[in-house]
């Protein structure tokens, strides 16, 4: 992280006092013990006590905090529920941690326009809970949905098991209210579709807290499908499983979810939840289809036939709702299940072209041997999003470093085969230094200049996403000057 600014650390008392004037009462957290609750997010390998924590309860307070921080050059780290798996909400020693937990109200549910207006601290699952009695739900379903907030989902462009068919956060929100670092309050979108000019909402989604602070979100809600059925399919090789996934898509089927687990993940999950996963297979697929009952049955039949043609050794369609949920319980418990067989695990998040899956898994096994660390794989197979879980023991000297090096090698491999560093967890601190494997300096400079348009002093969540901090003035220099580039070979007409 950037070296803490000594002058800011010295001014801590003044900063606390100024924040207390803006957010009276218990909204400013100063004591060491209470700040400890904020020292890390879901990526617990990184910890840092924030300078001070502020918990505003309305947009005016957010604007005043940001205006103050801009005026006095104080860094700000926004935070929702702190479930980021990439260190997106990791505090700064010289930065104000801006917690949005008090923005926890659902403001409006508009069934006629199929949307809900909520504050950013509302949890993802709470939105579905609020509308399910009327037959609706909010589609993106990250595994942390019981805890993660919609504001954090916007910052990270969160996905989930169902995003192959229903999209990521960016495809499911209609509008936001946000505050810029200069305290300006801006509304983007609303209950209507598409932007009137540049799609600033699209840029804000997935910007990892570097561009502004979201203070209200309008989400699309969808009618719940009448039926959902799942199919459990076991294969003797991962190649067979990967080919089956490709064949399902080639047959024109976009399942609501299509998850793959490899042998170590299957065994860990089965030992944990005992749902009857086959233990004699190398790869297990859970395929879910939804829609009208007749559609779900029709598609399950087609997928069964495709699976049989791809050497499946186990094929079990769910007979009822409890069985469907049982199929999923193993997959959903895969992370804690792995946590049971290993003291620590490190969850990675690359995306690859699916055609390269078998090759990537083979090379991952080699890397696993080289690094002397085991790996279990769960995989959003439909969209190519891999979640390798590297097993390690932080108490063994050197294992944390080996796990990180192994993780970095896996992500580089994803990029090498034509994939990307992160499918849904974000870059954050974790993958920041790997950005150079996917983007060259010029690519990154274009992104950093966009940040300058929002935050010219680089005060919002610095140290995340970009491997190097550049000053906006330096980034803005144009290297093309009149007369220096004659382009004599340019075709003209």
């Amino acid at each position, binding site marked *: 992280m950037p070296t803490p600014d000594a002058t800011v650390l010295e001014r801590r008392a003044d900063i606390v006092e100024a924040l207390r004037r803006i957010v009276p009462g218990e909204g400013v957290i100063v004591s060491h013990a209470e700040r400890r609750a904020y020292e890390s997010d879901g990526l617990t390998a990184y910890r840092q006590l924030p300078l001070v924590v502020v918990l505003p309860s309305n947009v005016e307070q957010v604007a005043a905090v940001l205006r103050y921080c801009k005026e006095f050059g104080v860094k700000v780290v926004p935070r929702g529920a702190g479930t980021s798996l990439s260190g997106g909400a990791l505090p700064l020693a010289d930065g104000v941690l801006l917690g949005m937990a008090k923005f926890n109200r659902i403001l409006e549910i508009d069934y006629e*326009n199929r949307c809900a207006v909520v504050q950013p601290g509302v949890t993802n699952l709470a939105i579905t809970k609020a509308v399910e009695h009327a037959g*609706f739900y909010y589609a993106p379903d990250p595994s942390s949905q019981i805890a993660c907030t919609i504001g954090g989902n916007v910052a990270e*462009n969160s996905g989930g098991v169902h995003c192959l068919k229903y999209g990521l956060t960016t495809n499911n929100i209609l509008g936001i209210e946000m505050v810029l670092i200069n305290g300006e309050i801006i509304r983007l979108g609303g209950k209507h579709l598409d932007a009137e*000019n540049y799609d600033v909402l699209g840029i804000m989604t997935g910007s990892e807290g570097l561009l502004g602070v979201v203070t209200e979100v309008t989400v699309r809600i969808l009618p719940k499908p009448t039926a959902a059925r799942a199919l459990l399919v076991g294969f003797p090789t991962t190649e067979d499983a990967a080919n089956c996934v490709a064949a399902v898509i080639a047959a024109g089927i976009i399942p609501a979810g299509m998850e793959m687990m490899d042998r170590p993940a299957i065994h860990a999950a089965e030992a944990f939840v005992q749902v009857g996963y086959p233990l004699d297979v190398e790869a297990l697929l859970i395929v879910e289809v939804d829609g009208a009952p*007749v559609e779900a049955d029709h598609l399950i039949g087609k997928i069964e036939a495709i699976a049989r043609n791809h050497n499946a050794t186990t094929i079990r369609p769910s007979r009822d709702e409890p069985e469907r949920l049982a199929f999923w319980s193993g997959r959903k418990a895969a992370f804690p299940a792995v946590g049971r067989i290993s003291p620590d695990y490190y969850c990675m998040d690359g995306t690859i*072209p699916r055609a390269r899956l078998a090759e990537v898994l083979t090379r991952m096994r080699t890397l696993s041997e080289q690094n002397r660390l085991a790996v279990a794989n769960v995989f959003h197979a439909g969209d190519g999003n891999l979640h390798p879980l590297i097993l390690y023991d932080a108490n063994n000297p050197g294992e944390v470093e080996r796990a990180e090096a192994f993780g970095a090698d896996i992500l580089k491999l994803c990029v090498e085969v034509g994939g990307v560093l992160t*499918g849904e967890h974000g870059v954050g601190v974790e993958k920041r230094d790997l950005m150079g494997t996917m983007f060259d300096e010029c*690519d990154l400079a274009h992104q950093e200049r966009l940040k300058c348009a929002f935050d010219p002093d680089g005060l919002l969540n610095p140290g995340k996403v970009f491997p190097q901090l550049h000053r906006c003035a330096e980034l803005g220099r144009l290297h*093309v000057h009149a007369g220096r580039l004659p382009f004599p070979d340019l075709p003209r007409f």
Partner: protein
Amino acid sequence: MSRFAPDDLDELRDAVGEALAVEEPLEVVAGGSKRGFGRPLQLPRLLDLSRLAGIRDYQPSELVLTAGAATPIEEIDAALAEAGQMLAFEPPDLGALFGLPEAVAGQRTLGGALACNLSGPRRIKAGAARDHFLGFRGVSGRGEIFKAGGKVVKNVTGYDLCKLMAGSFGTLAALEEVTVKVLPRPEALSTVMLWGLDPLPAVRALSRALASPHEISGAVYIPAPSTTGLMSLPGSTAVAALRLEGPDPSVTFRRERLLAELGSDCEATSLDDESSIPFWQAVRDVLPLAGSGDRAIWRVSVAPSRGGELGEAIARRLDTSWYLDWAGGLVWAAIAGAEDGGAAVIRDAIRGADGRGTGHATLIKGSPELRRAVPVFEPQLPALAALVRRIKESFDPCRILNPGRMVDGF
């Protein structure tokens, strides 16, 4: 006007770099089918991207296609059809609306559809062009080659610059190569037609259908006078139409359910597969307003429940033909006789009586004088307008790419 037609990425960079060096802005064009959309430009240089064409990588089972930005949509549609797939956002062909000759209309390109973020009736279910735009490579107004996004369907690495490029009308970068998500073509489709409804009950019926679990992929309402533009319709009765797509047994089941649920208040019929295709293509291509001569054509995005009242409110004050797409959320209006093309009336109607209504109106077609005189794109509040200007400057500090296409002055 000098014309530059680069053959590859390096030549594209040189063309922008030279324009920068001599400070002569470029009008960026691929097929040229949408040159009449946006504020009129009179720039010293034309940057013709049409040679940056051709499908470069297409893996149907990966649901991803990469092509030169100027690849004609027709070529892409043909390749996708062969693998049973499609561009799910249904990029419209506005050739008939603009009165373009076939040859020009046929030149609409993938990059053009993305740069204008144009989507058809399936927008309500499958998303807009921006939702299918996965990655690109191009040259910014700084004369520098850069890329963003990726070539896989799921990616959150770095800012989502594809969203920014979608709908930026070539004002930030000249795209050289684009990658889009593609989806399977539905096995079957059917259309449920509800006849003779007035606008408000029609929008309520569309809303009921969208709130049902029947996965509606198109929801349009065409008032009586506008149906004459649709060849497959009798022509004098208002119609609300709902599209169903999916596996055959599912479409049949959902059609029967919809007919039962919505058919009690009006006459309800259905269109089969074969008649549904031209109907929805006509809706996609704005054919109900295609014969509007020199009327100003507006595209108004509002909360779906407000579409019917908005159409009626505009038609009460101005000579208007109109219809609704996106379950009421998109009002297409053709306006005659108003000096400002209807801009003030339409934009007031969006704000509504309490001034709190949200939405935006875009002037899709109008004379160059009209497009110079009224804001083609919805004006923004000062803080947002200033942010948008800073974004433009971050990619194109010298205003070399399509300056004035979206907003006067930059």
